[in-house]
């Protein structure tokens, strides 16, 4: 008979009380069902009864992951110098002296000078801001637009879902570089906005597909049906039940896409349709320096190196987050 306060009858296990990770985990796996967030790994636990969720488990995993720590440090550093570039670079990226053009490294100017005689070190530091702003805003824009459209299509299905799916197919068919050359060549604005807008325009279908698939999977879970049977409204089901469970893959893909957006900004700037001077950007500097790669390679290598490290850091971060949010890989 159902006994009050859960005395331990037969096979019905007690919920984990203060025993740390072991109990609850064994219990979940021994029932042969892998749940999204079976807490795993030793060292888990924490104080008795403290609620654990997928996110807190992922965070515990991430804190011990060297890939995450290294990429996280690089990104924190990048964010700091994008906000306060003068912390580590005292010069002005736009004050240039043609007399010093293409000169190599010297005291006070460790990276040398570029073709216009500007300090490469200062420009590399100041260029981080553009890259981070473009990367973060484009990712955010893509994540919001893609997950809203994909999520609604997945949740409601039917006619609009069919329309949206064909629309994503069309956008997937547009080659990124060619599309950029065509669309951005008519833009005269020197700000970062057209570039970000273009990235969102071409990037949302990827997120939209993932969000749609994720929402369709979650929607079929019994807990969503249970909410519906209780009489929950559509907004309640979407916000309380579907969204929190479906958002993880979107976050992961958006993080990985962030690195590729930074690289795309450099590509577009290199092709002359992205950002334009006087904006300071790695892409512009790489583009300017590429004709002189043989006699003054430092002009190219420093911004290109910074770009490579940044893109790598964001991609590694996305990778680590994905692994942490996927219990099957834990």
């Amino acid at each position: 008979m159902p006994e009050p306060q859960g005395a331990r009858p037969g096979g019905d296990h007690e919920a984990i009380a203060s025993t740390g990770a072991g109990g609850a985990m064994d219990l979940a796996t021994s029932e042969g069902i892998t749940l999204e967030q079976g807490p795993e790994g030793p060292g888990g636990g924490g104080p008795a009864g403290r609620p654990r969720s997928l996110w807190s488990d992922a965070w515990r995993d991430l804190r011990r992951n060297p890939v995450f720590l290294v990429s996280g440090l690089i990104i924190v550093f990048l964010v700091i110098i994008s906000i306060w570039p003068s912390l580590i670079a005292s010069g002005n990226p736009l004050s240039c002296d043609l007399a010093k053009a293409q000169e190599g490294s010297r005291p006070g100017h460790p990276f040398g000078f570029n073709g216009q005689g500007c300090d490469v070190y200062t420009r590399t530091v100041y260029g981080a801001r553009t890259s981070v702003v473009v990367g973060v805003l484009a990712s955010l824009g893509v994540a919001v637009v893609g997950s809203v459209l994909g999520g609604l299509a997945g949740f409601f299905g039917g006619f609009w879902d069919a329309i949206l799916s064909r629309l994503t197919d069309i956008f997937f068919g547009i080659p990124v570089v060619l599309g950029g050359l065509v669309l951005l060549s008519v833009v005269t604005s020197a700000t970062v906005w057209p570039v970000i807008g273009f990235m969102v325009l071409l990037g949302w279908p990827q997120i939209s597909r993932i969000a749609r698939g994720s929402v369709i999977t979650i929607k079929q879970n019994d807990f969503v049906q249970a909410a519906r049977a209780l009489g929950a409204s559509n907004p309640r089901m979407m916000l309380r039940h579907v969204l929190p469970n479906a958002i993880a893959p979107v976050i992961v893909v958006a993080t990985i896409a962030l690195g590729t957006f930074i690289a795309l900004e450099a590509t577009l700037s290199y092709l002359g349709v992205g950002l334009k001077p006087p904006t300071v950007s790695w892409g512009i500097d790489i583009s300017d320096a590429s004709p002189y790669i043989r006699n003054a390679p430092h002009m190219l290598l420093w911004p290109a190196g910074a770009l490579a490290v940044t893109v790598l850091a964001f991609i590694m971060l996305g990778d680590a987050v994905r692994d942490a949010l996927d219990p099957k890989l834990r």
Partner: protein
Amino acid sequence: MAEPATAGVAPAAPAAEPVLEVRDLVKHFPLTRGVLFRKQVGAVQAVDGVSFDLAPGETLGIVGESGCGKSTVAKMLVNLERPTSGVIRYKGEDITRLSGRALKAVRRNIQMVFQDPYTSLNPRMTVGDIIGEPYEIHPEVAPKGDRRRRVRELLDVVGLNPEYINRYPHQFSGGQRQRIGIARGLALQPEIIVADEPVSALDVSVQAQVINLMEKLQSEFGLSYLFIAHDLSIVRHISDRVGVMYLGRLAEIGSDEEIYDHPTHPYTQALLSAVPLPDPTARERRDRIILSGDVPSPANPPSGCRFRTRCWKARERCAVEVPELAVPEVFRGDGGPATHPSACHFAAERRTVPTATEPDEGE
């Protein structure tokens, strides 16, 4: 513990005023072809004309193999699926075409317990939020300040420690999770609980606990259960009446004694002969009916009697004439336990099986 008496809760036959009346319930899922321009090329006839009554305080068990439409019936009762046609009357009011406020009000009274306790609880919500959600959706049931206390009470009622209110579902075992699901179903104090295979995902030792809990709650709160399962012994244990479904239709319906000890429909007889027996001698003596072939596709069911393709009694008439679910003529006026509705032209009793729960009646 093993054999608690359910007798006395409700009579075997439906009482005068059924709380739920289901008439000719049909659900066809359209089969479509084409990507953007869909056209219907057929329909899966998941449920095709099911009728039954549910009396207050009664438990009606529905059994049948996978894909026979029992879960679809459950979903229509709680308005998760809209019937293609047919009527579901709750206290005389047809609920199949309700929407908005009226539907919400009816939903308060018909709640569902789901099969899989691992997917029926939102992993991102605490137990308190899960059981308390019904109150957020129906705020008139409990004032805001009172909800937390009610959730604790519900946890206590289903045999869980109220201190667990802040935990997440993954910190519980399958049986405990199912108790949480039952507590959520009870929160709005419904009259009817539709339980769709509530124990089939659980360990056998835990099944008994959950079943006993459900029986206790039934007598405490006067609930009516529609209990869907494919485990015949569990259904017999908990049900007052039992309906046997095959391919979207009811094959036979009656009190548990009528169905289990005096089945007249060949499908029920075959089903019962497959129940595992714990007693080896009884197992040797029994006459096992082995059906040939597979269940036909519900998208293209056989004409006439749906069971005829696998039935050893099938004749010409079975392919032409759909057998009605009614007391067969042979037994009319007989008054014995074989006098119950059975959808077979050639309904007959057959000395079948000593069933697991009643080993003494073996011979």
